[in-house]
């Protein structure tokens, strides 16, 4: 997952040039957009309103949530499949009809 998703989740828009693997990259490559000027051009914050640390924490939180969502979805699919099998449908019928 790209770090811009964490910045967005923290409520900010950004322009990131290159990669962000550490604090130095964060300082150099990440621009948090404050607003647009009268010509529509981006104005960046001189001092970023969020830190590298809190952005990484948010990123880890989003990754964990994504993993949990995946686990929850697999559990729901397994549950649905078990219920269909309990109704008497064969594995092939469930696969062909529902794609499970």
């Amino acid at each position, binding site marked *: 997952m790209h770090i811009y998703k964490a910045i967005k989740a923290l409520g900010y828009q950004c322009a990131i040039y*290159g990669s962000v693997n550490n604090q130095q990259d964060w300082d150099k490559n990440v*621009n948090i957009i404050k607003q647009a000027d009268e010509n529509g*051009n981006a104005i960046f914050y001189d001092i970023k309103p969020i830190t590298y640390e809190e952005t990484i924490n948010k990123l880890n939180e989003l990754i964990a949530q994504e993993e949990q969502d995946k686990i929850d979805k697999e559990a729901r699919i397994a549950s649905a499949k078990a219920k269909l099998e309990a109704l008497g449908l064969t594995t092939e019928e469930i696969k062909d009809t529902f794609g499970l």
Partner: protein
Amino acid sequence: MSILKVNTIQKKDGSAFPLGKIGQVLHTTTTTQLALTSSAYTDLGLEQAITPSSTSSKILIFTNIHSQYQDSGQNAAYTMKMLRGATQVYTGGQLYEITSETANATGQQKDSWTFLDSPSTTSSTTYKVQVSTFNNSDVTFQRGGFFQSELLLMEILA
């Protein structure tokens, strides 16, 4: 081997001999990834200076932009602005030209624009590309540093 050196070449009637219409060609590229999540225009990382040889020259501009949509929950789209110094040669409108057809899009593509500009100067002038995403959607340009965007300037003599 002989070398022929002359100051000017003229036709029999004394008028200038046509030497071609292309004055100069300048080309620049970038592979630096830009991840943008804003409708505010931001530098793409493509700019090129040119010094026209005559005020009557035109500048033919070609630009190719590599992009990838990585959005979720809405259509992703972007547009671009071409600047000559602070002057807008072209600015995309409210209807963004390059758009994904569906939400949750992850497609990538290369889009091209062509402009003909009349800078009316013989001073060095710099052309620059900026981009903006629709409704703060997520678009990555020159993804991963593997893909390239280009800007080519061609001086067309009068």
